[in-house]
C-alpha cells in the first residue's frame, strides 16, 4: 500500500510539471491553432534562468520564480512578434516549421554558451518527511501546490476576465473578433506571455526537482507536453491539466508494472488506443461542421 502511495506521489509531482507545460501549449494552440514546438525550449530557458538566479545571483525562491516566469514570458512575446506574427496569415504549417527552427536555434545558442551540463546547487531547504514508510519532500509539495495554484489562476483568467473572453473570442473566429474591436495582436501577445510564464515556472520547478540541466532538456519534455495537451483535448485548459497527470501516471504505472524496457512501447500504445476511442482527446470536442 505504501508502495502504491509512494508511486502515486511520484506521479503527482511529475504530472504537475507536465501539466504546467501542457497548459502553455494548449493556450497558444487554442488561440492560434498553432503548435508552438519551441515551447519545450522555452521551458529549458526557464530552467537556465533558474540556474542563473540560484547559482550566480543567489536569490531566494520567490524572486527566482519571478525571474523564470518573467524572463520566459518576455522571450515568448519576442519570438511571437519576430517570428510568428509575420506568418499569421500564412499556411498553418509554415508557423509550425518556424517554431521548430526557433526551438533548434534556442537549443544550440544555449549550447554555444554552455556545452557542459550545469548543476543547480541545493539552495532551498528541502525537508523530507517520513510518514509510515512514505517519503514526502517539501519540494514535491511545493511543486504540486504551485502548479495547481497557477492552473487555477489560469482557469480564472480564461473564464472570468475580459482578457480571457477576448482570448476565447479570438480562438473561435479571429477575423470577426477583430471586426468587433478586440485588439487581436495584443491578445495574442498576452497569450504567449502567459503561456511562456507557465513554461518558465515549469522549467524552474523541474530544475529544482531534477537539478542537472542541459540545453536539450526541453526536447523530449516538449513532445510529452504536446501529447498531454492532445490527450486532454487540444485547446481545453482543463484537458491539458488532465492530460499531464494522465501521461505521468501512465509512465510511472508502466515502469512499475512491467520490465522498464517496455515502458515507452506500452505507454505510447496506450496513447494510440485512447485516441482510437476518443479521437478528439478526453475533453476535446470536434469543431462542429455544418454539412
Amino acid at each position, binding site marked *: 500500500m505504501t508502495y502504491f502511495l509512494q508511486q502515486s506521489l511520484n506521479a503527482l509531482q511529475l504530472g504537475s510539471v507536465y501539466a504546467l507545460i501542457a497548459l502553455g501549449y494548449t493556450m497558444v494552440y487554442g488561440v492560434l491553432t498553432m503548435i508552438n514546438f519551441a515551447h519545450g525550449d522555452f521551458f529549458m530557458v526557464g530552467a537556465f534562468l533558474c540556474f542563473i538566479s540560484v547559482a550566480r545571483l543567489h536569490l531566494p525562491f520567490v524572486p527566482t520564480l519571478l525571474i523564470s516566469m518573467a524572463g520566459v514570458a518576455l522571450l515568448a512575446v519576442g519570438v511571437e512578434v519576430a517570428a510568428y506574427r509575420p*506568418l499569421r496569415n500564412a499556411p498553418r504549417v509554415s508557423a509550425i516549421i518556424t517554431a521548430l527552427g526557433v526551438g*533548434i536555434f534556442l537549443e544550440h545558442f544555449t549550447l*554555444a554558451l554552455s556545452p557542459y551540463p550545469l548543476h543547480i546547487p541545493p539552495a532551498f531547504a528541502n525537508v523530507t518527511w517520513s510518514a509510515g514508510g512514505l517519503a514526502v519532500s517539501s519540494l514535491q509539495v511545493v511543486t504540486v501546490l504551485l502548479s495547481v495554484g497557477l492552473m487555477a489562476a489560469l482557469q480564472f483568467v480564461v473564464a472570468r476576465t475580459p482578457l480571457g473572453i477576448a482570448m476565447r473570442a479570438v480562438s473561435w473566429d479571429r477575423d470577426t473578433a477583430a471586426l468587433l474591436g478586440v485588439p487581436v495582436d495584443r491578445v495574442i501577445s498576452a497569450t504567449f506571455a502567459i503561456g511562456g510564464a507557465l513554461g518558465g515556472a515549469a522549467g524552474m520547478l523541474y530544475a529544482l526537482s531534477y537539478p542537472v540541466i542541459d540545453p536539450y532538456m526541453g526536447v523530449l519534455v516538449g513532445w510529452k507536453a504536446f*501529447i498531454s495537451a492532445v490527450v486532454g483535448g487540444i485547446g481545453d485548459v482543463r484537458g491539458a491539466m488532465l492530460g499531464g497527470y494522465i501521461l505521468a501516471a501512465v509512465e510511472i504505472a508502466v515502469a512499475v508494472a512491467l520490465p522498464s524496457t517496455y515502458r515507452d*512501447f506500452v505507454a505510447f500504445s496506450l496513447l494510440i488506443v485512447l485516441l*482510437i476511442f476518443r*479521437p478528439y482527446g478526453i475533453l476535446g470536442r470536434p469543431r462542429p461542421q455544418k454539412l
Partner: protein
Amino acid sequence: MNRHTAGALLRDRRVLYALTAVGFLLSWAIPRFGLLDSYVQLILMYVGINVILCLSLNLINGYMGEFSVGHAGFMSAGAYTASLLTVRVFPHGAAWAFPAACLAGGCAAALLGLLVALPSFKTRGDYLAIVTLAFVFIVKSAVENIDAAGGPRGLLGMDRLTTLPWVYAWTVGTVFVIRNFIYSRYGRGVLAVREDETAAEFMGVDTRQVKVLTFVVASFFAGAAGALFAHLLQYISPGMFDIVKSTDMLVMVYLGGVASIGGSLLGASLYTVLLEALRPLAMWRMVLMPLLLVLLMIFRPRGIMGLREFPWFRRRCPPQGGGQPCGACGIGGSAGADRTDSLTVGVAAAAQPRPQVPLLDVSGLSHRFGGLAAVSGFSLRMSSGELVGIIGPNGAGKTTVFNLITGAYRPDEGRILFSGQDITGLRPGAINAAGIARTFQNIRLFKDLSVLDNIMTAHYARSSCGVAEALTHAGGYQAEEARVRDHSLELLAFFEMQGQSAACAGSLSYGLQRRLEIVRALATRPRLLLLDEPAAGMNPLEVDQLMEFIRRVRAEFGVAVLLIEHQMRLVMSLCERLEVLDFGTTIAAGTPAQIQSHPRVLEAYLGQESAS
C-alpha cells in the same frame, strides 16, 4: 541561352528523359572513374536518400494535407528488415541480394504504413500527428527490446552495398512512381481529401482506399530509403530513427514546398548540401541553420517552390487534368464541344424511367440530435424526372432530410428506398454510386484545385483504373484518363464553362461556383440530384439564370431534382410540387398554387394572424 529557350527546354519532356539517361550514365561513371572525390560521392548519396524520404513524406503531408511525424519509423523498419536479410539470410555476394533486400525493406515499411493508415480513417489533423508520433516511439522501443536485431547496441555487418547508381535508380524510381500516382485518379482523390474530405466522400471518392494507398506508397519508399541508408553507413541503431530524424524530414518537405515534386528535390538537396557546406562554422553551424530556416519561412512561407511545380513534372498545358496548381498554365484548352450528344445520350440512357417503382421512396424518416427531434416522420415519394421543392422556415429540418437521404447520418427511424433498393444508412459513397448526388448549403468545392480537376475528381468511382496502372501510367491508364478528361471537358463545355477549366475553383465568381458545384454533382451520373439552397446569396438576375440552368439540366440529363430553397420566386415557378416542413414534419404538400394559399404554411411563415 535566353529565358525563352530555357523555358521551352523545361517544358519539353524529352529533355527530361535525356537528362535522366545522362544521369544514369554519370552515376555509374563517377565512382568507376573517380570523376568526383569520395566525399562528394557520399554527399550525393545522402542527397538521393533524403530526396526519396522527402518525396514520400510530401505525399502524406503535402498532397494529402496531414501532419505526419512518423516517417522515421518507416525508415527504421526498412533499414532493419533489409539489413537483417543481407547479414543473416541472403547469401553474401549474390547480385540479387541487395535489390531484393531493399524491396523487402520497402514492403515491411508498407505493412506498417497500412497499420498507421487505419487510425487516419477517424482521426485527422493534430490528433493523427500524435498517432504518428507515438508510432515513432513504439518502433524505437520495439527494436531496442529485440536482442536479435542488436537492441540498442545496433546492427553491424552490412556490406557497403549502396552505390551511387543504386541511389540514383531508386531516386528516379521514386519520382516516377509518385508523380504517376499524383496524376492519376488516386492522386485526385488524395487532393480532394485534403481540400474537403466530406465533399469528396459525397462525390464518390473512396476516402479510405485513398488514405491507405497514400500511406502504403509513402511508407514503402521510406523503407527503401532506410535500406539504402543502412547499407551506406554499415551500422544502424534504433536511436538513429527517432523523432529528431522525423523533424529533419519535415523541415526538408516544408522548406522545399509542399505538394511539389520539384520542391522536394530542391528542399532535400539544399538542406543536405547546406549542412555539409557550413562545416567551417563548427558549433555555430547549428545556430545558423535554424536561423536561415526561420528567415526563409518568414519570407517564403510556402517554401522555395511555393505552390509551383517544375513544368517537367506537370501535365502538358493546356490543362488536361490532374493535380497541378491551378491557374499556372493560363486559360486555354478546348475540346469536343461538339460531342454533346454522347454526353447526354449516355446519361439519359442511364435514367431509364421505371414507372412501376418510384425513384425515391422515403417513409417515416425520423432523427434526433440529442434531445432535439430534427426530423419526425418525414415521407416523400418522387418519380423519375420530377422537380420537387422542399421549403420551410429556418431550422425546419430540410438539410437534415438531405443529410439522411445521402448517408451523412443513419436515421433513427424510417426507410429510404431508391429505385426499390434500400439505401437507408449506407455510406455516402455507396449512395452516390446508387445514383444520388448533392450540393451543399455552404459551397464545398475543392477550392485550390482547378475547375477541371473538380469535375475529374467526381469520376473517381466510375473509373476502372487500377493501382498498378496508376503507378506506372501503363496499360489502360492513358485511355482511361483520356476518357475521363474528355467527359469532364464536355460537361464543362455543355454549360459554357470550358473557358475556365484551368482556373482555380476558388477564384470563380459566386454564381459560377454554385454552377460548378452542380456540374460536379452531375459528373457522378446521378438519377436524382439534391440541391441545397442553390440560389442563396444570388441577385434576381442570377436567380433567373439558375432557374434556366436547372431546367436545362433536368431536360438534357433526365435527372429528377429535389431542391431546398428560400427564394419563393424560384420555388414557385420552377417546382412541380412542394413539400413544406416545419419542426421536422411535413405540414403541407401540393402544387405551388395550393401551397401559396395554404393556411398552415402562412401560419408557419408569417405567424398566427396572417393565417386567419
